[in-house]
């Protein structure tokens, strides 16, 4: 089978599944819903994996472009086309594999839900849109996927639509994302106006052929590349929850947990990182914006990590952790370590999906409870969830040889090599905090003794196989995913040939520009030293967590902290009051302006003037009425006066 010629079926199959489940299947046919809901992304995964295999083992892996049809005509001719190259291959791998496992898990987790069919229809729709996003050959197809995943996010966050909060959270997500999309759109306009195309391949080629076009001044003292990359990055800020547009992601946890795992951890939120790497040729020409990207990433990474330290809702901890890790990825892309960004994106997809699914299993066992203050000692009751969650925690904390270690290390090495020492420092600090808050969640949830109600304790049980098998498989990924990117330095030091597979595979998509220095190299000893530092910091974070929350200590440390530093504790627990700030500074003034437009401009000024005009007309009419007396002699007089006037006019 030639899977490459069937490329467009990879996104099309999940769309088909969504349509079948959404329009044809009825609510009662649960078995059928499950079959369609799994078969569509499953087939898409198999096709995707085959295509990737055939592509990667092909003789000359040139980017493969497949145009399906032409979307528009004339001056703005854009194709609906797909592109398979190393970057989209990695993304497709992550999206289909993690996505499929989460679909399987959902069968168990959502099994008793009334909206089971709706859930699977939306989840399939999401897969289709996400694959459109990563496989699109131009910005337009990417944007369709980009907004499509946003829509699915909206619908799935608001899955429990008959409650007050979830739909509100969905709306917030959509609107905040739209703010980013607005910038994305403007960036696209500038690109199209300058290059006359939105194809990734063509734009890259033209920029490589004539970098001076992209470096020419455009607006605000920015070059074209600077303006476009800034716009695109603002788009990424929305989708990938970076400062200042991250506020929607924690609220997005109102959706079902598998949704949080798939959309709000593993795939959709990483789209911004993917986009930055996809347009790396432009970012390389805009060093000032790249630095800005790295700065925002670093700031977001540490900012979210501090909040994560003070959250008690297990999903909120993971949400802020996601924001923080996404910051890490942008940090990498900003310092020019594009491969490291994608590497971390891939490993993160495995361990963060695993963490969310693990938390789902916990919540499932706790009968819907998400507050870690009521948990504790669950490892006895959840013999499979516990070890897998622990593996994921070790992976995210950066303990070798698990996945997170290698990807995080490569990011830090990249920052250090680029002489961004401050950013490296923030990264290292964040790594320590990450280990700390993640192990806090492990200790509070699984260790110590149970703090919930008697009823909850009685109800505790391990989840069914359909949920635990995906956990185990993802755990496998969380352990091994890092091995595809073991740094070149380590291979060399150990005396082997370089097997940094990921690096070799991805290098064709990273543009090499004359005069742009990307090949920073560290000496082996520095590299090793950096590795040791990051491992030490991770272990340090773990130890601190163990000292504070380990064993039977429970929440004592949190209480002491709240007593000693009430201000800081409140600040963290309330997420620095950013939501409140936005409400006061943006939302309310805007609503006031809108009301002013309506009540003052529309009603008072425009209609007021109109009514005054109408009143004057009526008054004139009334005056006229006095003269229309109905008396025939008066009319004769008017007539006579008129005739006189006419004569006068004719004579003179």
């Amino acid at each position, binding site marked *: 089978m030639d899977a490459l010629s069937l490329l467009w079926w990879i996104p099309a199959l999940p769309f088909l599944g969504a349509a079948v489940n959404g329009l044809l299947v009825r609510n009662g046919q649960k078995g059928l819903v499950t079959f369609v809901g799994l078969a569509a992304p499953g087939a898409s995964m198999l096709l995707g994996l085959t295509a990737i295999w055939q592509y990667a083992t092909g003789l000359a892996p040139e980017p493969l472009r497949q145009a399906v049809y032409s979307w528009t005509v004339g001056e703005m001719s854009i194709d609906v086309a797909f592109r398979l190259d190393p970057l989209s291959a990695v993304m497709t791998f992550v999206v289909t594999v993690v996505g499929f496992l989460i679909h399987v898990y959902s069968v168990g987790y959502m099994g008793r839900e009334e909206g089971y069919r709706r859930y699977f229809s939306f989840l399939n729709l999401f897969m289709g849109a996400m694959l459109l996003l990563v496989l699109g050959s131009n910005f337009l197809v990417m944007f369709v996927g980009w907004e499509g995943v946003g*829509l699915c996010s909206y619908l799935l966050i608001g899955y429990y639509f*008959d*409650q007050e909060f979830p739909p509100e959270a969905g709306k917030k997500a959509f*609107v905040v994302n739209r703010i980013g*999309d607005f910038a994305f759109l*403007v960036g696209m*306009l500038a690109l199209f*106006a300058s290059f006359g195309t939105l194809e990734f391949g063509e734009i890259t080629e033209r920029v490589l052929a004539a970098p001076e076009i992209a470096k020419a001044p455009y607006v605000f003292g920015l070059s074209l590349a600077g303006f476009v990359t800034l716009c695109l990055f603002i788009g990424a800020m929305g989708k990938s929850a970076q400062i200042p547009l991250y506020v929607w992601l924690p609220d997005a946890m109102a959706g079902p947990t598998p949704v949080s795992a798939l959309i709000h951890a593993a795939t959709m939120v990483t789209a911004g990182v993917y986009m930055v790497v996809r347009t790396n040729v432009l970012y390389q020409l805009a060093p000032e914006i790249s630095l800005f990207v790295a700065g925002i990433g670093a700031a977001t990474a540490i900012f979210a990590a501090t909040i994560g330290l003070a959250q008690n809702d297990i999903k909120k901890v993971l949400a802020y952790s996601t924001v923080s890790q996404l910051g890490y990825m942008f940090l990498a892309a900003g310092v020019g370590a594009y491969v490291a960004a994608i590497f971390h994106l891939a490993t993160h997809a495995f361990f963060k999906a695993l963490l969310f699914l693990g938390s789902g299993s916990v919540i499932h066992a706790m009968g819907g409870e998400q507050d870690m203050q009521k948990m504790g000692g669950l490892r006895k009751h959840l013999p499979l969830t516990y070890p897998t969650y622990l593996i994921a925690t070790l992976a995210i904390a950066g303990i070798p040889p698990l996945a997170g270690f290698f990807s995080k290390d490569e990011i830090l090495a990249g920052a250090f090599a680029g002489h961004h020492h401050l950013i490296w420092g923030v990264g290292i600090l964040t790594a320590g905090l990450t280990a700390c808050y993640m192990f806090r969640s492990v200790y509070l949830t699984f260790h110590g003794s149970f703090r919930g109600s008697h009823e909850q304790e009685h109800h505790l049980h391990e989840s069914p196989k359909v949920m635990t098998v995906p956990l185990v498989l993802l755990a496998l990924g969380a352990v091994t995913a890092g091995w595809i990117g073991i740094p070149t330095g380590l291979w060399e030091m150990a005396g082997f040939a370089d097997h940094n597979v990921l690096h070799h595979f991805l290098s064709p998509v990273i543009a090499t520009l004359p005069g742009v220095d990307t090949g920073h190299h560290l000496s082996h000893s520095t590299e090793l030293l950096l590795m040791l530092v990051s491992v030490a910091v991770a272990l340090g974070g773990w130890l601190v967590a163990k000292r504070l929350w380990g064993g039977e200590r429970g929440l004592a440390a949190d209480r002491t902290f709240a007593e000693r530093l009430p201000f800081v504790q409140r600040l963290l627990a309330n997420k620095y009051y950013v939501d409140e700030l936005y409400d006061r500074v943006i939302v309310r003034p805007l609503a006031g302006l809108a009301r002013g437009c309506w009540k003052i401009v529309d009603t008072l000024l425009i209609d007021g003037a109109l009514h005054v005009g109408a009143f004057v007309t009526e008054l004139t009419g009334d005056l006229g009425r006095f003269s229309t007396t109905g008396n025939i002699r008066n009319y004769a007089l008017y007539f006579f006066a008129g005739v006189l006037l006419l004569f006068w006019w004719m004579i003179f």
Partner: protein
Amino acid sequence: MSTSFLDLLLGDTITRFVFFPTVAGLPLLLMRRAPAATVKIYALVVSLVELALIGLFVVGRWGSTGALLARDAVLPWIDLAPLSVVYEVGLDGISLPLVLLTGLLLPIVLLGSWNGIDKHWGGYAFSMLLLTTGILGALVALDLFVFYVFWEVMLIPMYLIIGIWGAERRIYAAVKFFLFTMAGSLLMLIGILWLGWTYGRLTGVWSFRYEDLLRLELPIDQQLWLFGAFAIAFAIKVPMFPVHTWLPDAHVEAPTGGSVILAGILLKLGTYGFLRFALPLFPHAADRLTPWLLALALVGIVYGALVAWVQVDMKKLVAYSSIAHLGFVMLGIMACDLVAWQGALIQMVNHGLSTGALFLLVGMLYERRHTKKFEDFGGLAKPMPWFATVLVFSTLASVGLPALNGFVGEFMILVGTFKAGWRWFAALSTVGVVLAAIYLLKMLQQTIWGPITREENESVPDLGLREALTLAPLCVLMLWIGVAPKPFLEPSRPALAALLEDYRSRCAEPAPDEPLLAPARVSAGSPTFAAGVVDQEAGR
């Protein structure tokens, strides 16, 4: 043997589908005693036949490479030397999409008014059919006098629809609608007469034919006055800020069908007027005033969106959203770029589809709950899942979600505007995209999501078969245009390209000091209709 009007009416002509609704609708006025069902079915059949007439006429001429698809034989109408008015109608790629939309919306509106209209159904249906004649006539008129007559014909049935079948404050709304529109059209009438008179001064014979008047080269001050007269008439119709306040009142008071036609098509006559008449007839004036009109369009986009956001009445929210959406259309038209024009034209259709669907949905809700206030709704997705699905779908189309129709128009308008050098206008109007999400999702939030707070909402019936039938064609088109817009964009392109080329070449030459008459243009890039004639004569 010369053709008579009757020949046109009975032949395979534009005239036939323009007048068919009114002629076939006349019996409705006599069916006072007939059972309601008979009246309704008769009217529906008439509307479906009308759709078929339009469809067959267009299909037969599809794929014509020329700008003009068809033109009826020209008939003398008023012949009082030196005044001569002819009856001349034609169909080109610019009027085609709107003609098709009109044909599509007519049966949908009648079906959608099935139970909502509870008195004088026959009279209501006849008003709709007469209105259709007015709309179609204005869209195909190739003589400005004929255009003006049809333009006024639209006014009366709409006035009656709001005034007789409207809600509580219907008289206020109807009068407001009438006066606003009338004020504008009187200015336009003066402009038309001035043009005809000027043509007469230069040639000895008055003429109102579009083709003739396009040859007039006027000094800039005259152009500015005349453009102003036309622009005010059209701007009121669009409506543009600040002459928009009749619209929310008209929509809130109008019955559902009236709102659908009003938003779906009537407003587009304003934007169509700019594209067809105001710009080509007075290129220099339009060119000079472009930044101002772009600014007004931008204000409309942001202002309409902001005010929509704080509405407490669902229908009023949709009404204000129309102002924002039409702002995009105006932006595209004034950008004077082919991509932007294509976008503006398709956006007119898109707005008709998605806003039409939204008004139908509001109407369906009103028939069930007798209220349009947000505070009375909430949680309706539970009792009405299909209603909620269609509402979400139409709302997303209106928001401009890619892969649905709204995005196509908006995107092309923005690309064209940006490309044409109006970067700031394009970038700033993108704010409207954000605001659209805010107010439209607010609408969803307050109607279908959340817990049910009122007992009455617990058992509201979901969509029935008739209602599903009215909405289905709209939904199909929203998706189709969004996924594969190319076939919908293609037929209009030659006409728009010819119009734009002519507009640009005329702008490039300075305006004369005295009125002049340019020679009739016959080259391929000349005015839309002349180009079409060449094609026809060449036997293509």
